[in-house]
């Protein structure tokens, strides 16, 4: 049975390395296959959804903020884990618009709904 749904769980921080940028870019490609794709930010990944994250890096290229906006514009459901935000001193008001803050136990539900989940 072909893969129909995919969930990406990003746990790495957003700026220092291109890791998460690359996997978010790849995941956008899944939309070309008409796959149901959801994006979850957990652990250090929650820094991706900071409202104040600058759109450009110091060298002037697009930051992950642009990819997050693109994902949301394509109606990808984007989540951030409440407990991981709190442990990092971040409040719901710090979170970019259209990102849904969820309790940690909801992550397992999202994983159960996806044929394939990958952590980054």
């Amino acid at each position, binding site marked *: 049975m*072909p893969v129909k749904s*995919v969930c990406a769980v990003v746990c790495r921080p957003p700026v220092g390395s*291109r890791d998460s940028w690359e996997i978010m870019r*790849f995941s956008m*490609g899944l939309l070309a296959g008409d796959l149901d794709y959801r994006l979850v930010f957990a652990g250090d990944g929650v820094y991706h959804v900071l409202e104040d994250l600058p759109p450009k890096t110091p060298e002037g290229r697009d930051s992950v903020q642009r990819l997050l906006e693109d994902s949301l514009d394509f109606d990808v459901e984007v989540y951030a884990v409440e407990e991981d935000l709190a442990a990092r001193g971040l409040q719901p008001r710090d979170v970019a618009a259209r990102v849904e803050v969820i309790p940690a136990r909801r992550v397992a539900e999202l994983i159960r709904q996806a044929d394939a989940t990958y952590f980054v």
Partner: protein
Amino acid sequence: MAALFILLKAAPEEEQHVRFARNLAQAAAAQGHSVTLFALGEGVYNLAAGLGGQHGDYGISLDGQGAVRVLYCHYNAEQRAVAERIPQGFESSATSQAGILVARSDRFVTISA
């Protein structure tokens, strides 16, 4: 027979991941399954010709014995200036094509450092 899509996002330096991807791909292909391996990010370095140098102790060969279809993200290969060093047997591709191929696969596993 099933179709398996493997995303490889690990540099040659990260041998454990490259080895696992290669061995999984080859075992599945040997069993008659259809296997696609897509190299993303640092993963494209694994396909560049000449890895190992005169010392020959660096990099794990991904030549698929014909049975594994290997594609790579052209954008990532260009960024790293290795696009022209990737042998013919490997296919230049893009993330949108990857998405279409994932949707045609029965299983999708990522292997990442």
